[in-house]
């Protein structure tokens, strides 16, 4: 009950879990390789429709998208947080 964890650590774990789910989805879709799957990372880099290519696609898009959100959280929390623990 009294054991407390750092909030950042918990959020990093959640972030890693969600990015891992994206990686897993990429791996499964890459393995199945359905017809017409043609991954283009950030509309620029063509990736092969293989398990590795799809993992890179999933991890990059979700990791960067949520990573940007996390950076914003860190920025705002450091500068505008008026409820800091004393």
């Amino acid at each position: 009950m009294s054991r407390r964890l750092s909030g950042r650590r918990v959020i990093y774990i959640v972030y890693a879990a969600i990015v891992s789910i994206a990686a897993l989805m990429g791996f499964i879709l890459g393995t199945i390789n359905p017809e017409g799957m043609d991954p283009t990372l950030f509309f620029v880099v063509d990736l092969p429709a293989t398990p590795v290519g799809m993992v890179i696609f999933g991890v990059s898009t979700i990791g960067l998208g949520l990573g940007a959100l996390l950076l914003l959280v860190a920025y705002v929390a450091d500068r505008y947080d008026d409820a800091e623990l004393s």
Partner: protein
Amino acid sequence: MGDMASGQIAITVLMGLLLVVVAALLTRIENWRSYAPTAGASSLTGEETSYGHSEKPGGITRWLTTVDHKDIGILYGAFALVAFAVGGIMVVLMRTELMWAGEDIMSASLYNSLLTSHGITMLFLFGTPIIAAFGNYFVPLLIGADDMAFPRINAIAFWLLPPGALLIWGGFLIPGMEAAQTSWTMYTPLSAEQPMIGADLMILGLHLTGVSATMGAINFIATIFTERDEEVTWANLDIFSWTMLTQSGLILFAFPLLGSALVMLLLDRNVGTTFFATEGGGAILWQHLFWFFGHPEVYILVLPPMGLISYIIPRFSGRKLFGFKFVVYSTLAIGVLSFGVWAHHMFSTGIDPRLQVSFMAVSLAIAIPSAVKTFNWITTMWNGKIRLTTPMLFSIGFVANFIIGGVTGVFLATIPVDYLLHDTYYVVGHFHYVIMGAIAFAVFAGIYYWFPIYTGKMYQKALGKWHFWLTMIGTNLTFFGMLILGYLGMPRRYATYNLVSVGPIDLFTILHQSATIGAFILLIGQLVFVWNVVSSWLYGRRVADGDPWDLKDDALYSREFRWHERRMNDDLVLADGGASDDGSEES
């Protein structure tokens, strides 16, 4: 003729007498549970039995006649959890059928009936009522009201639900009758032409639950506007009450429309009107009316759970909610925008492309206030010191699952992707991530967080954590599999997939089996939950502390626990919400 009439009168009188006798007997069954050997720690009365109830009748009569907001909250909660069990068993049967590609353990028509009933049960008999349970019990406590504004209307609203449920489940309960097979969306012309009476009963039952929700919403609005304690201003109204208020506003605009559309559908089915017939308003009219209700319904279901999460996360992060005002504004923004997105369910019907684009724009826009909330939850945790109690675990699970449900939803809101994925398992996976992964998680968080207040006991913590992890793993296994199935083109709402030609059956079988295993894990988790709640309530350790979560350490002690502490100290139960003479706080 005369004999027959007098015979009927005699039977009527006899039946009336019988009812009076039964009612009289019920009034004499006082506190029946307390005769058990463990009398001291017993009773599902929702209050501590060591306190007197001089103002309330005993036994079952109390529950049949109560107008106390807390008792009605308990009734709503018990009803909703029974419905959750029924809806859950239905889906376990369906998932078992989907273990194999063919028609194995049930007929396709029974599958269709279960599918219809599962959706309606979970949304209307579990989702809305469990939120009403929290609202009824806690909103008056949080705003310092004596009770709800209209206690009797409150009781009536609840008592419309059981007959509504019986009608909705009537097709299963009445021998020889077939249950509706329309799916929860009841699209015409299918729903107008399906001959079974079970469909009529279901529509009538839905209508009753809609009336119930509307009465409840009027009550919440009146209560929050007029019954607040002097110290509770709009500025320091707690976040859960804000979301209940917004949700009630949505109900007020959405549910009466559903009621009207349902009556029109009933008339089309039984009287030969042509509201939704091709020569009348057309089948698309139903979709417009239904989704004008149906999409706000999504937010009716998600806003108060978001309120719960916004309320609980700060308490186990040791700090106030970050950006409280923005969370309130985003709630209001979602409330307004939710009425402008309904046609994104109808992109594939061929409606005007200009309309499609405008609905896509609003649908994408509604992601912004949702993201604002997520942002605030994460920021609240960021600098916090987190205690991983069961309610907090479910809250963090909510955030994680809501991100997955939300991101998959953003893709669906774009027209080209929707064309591709419409009516596939991707849609099912997406909305279940929100409904099960988020809404139900918040409900569990609320149940555990306030467990000490409404039971006077503490739940078993190890079992609570088992419940969380089984539910988290089960949810992700089930609905992750569905996202992939949908991406591969597996259409939804089918009992079999041996004739599906869009993908390899072996692969579909493996993915369906993993989803089914996930559903079984979920089932085990919920059995743990039921065991935990029932056994802790009956035999659990009595909470001796008015601050079971040590909220005072972080200056986050709130009105409902203050009320709880006062009640414990007073040695008699207040029949009302309790006038507060001490300070309130926000968030």
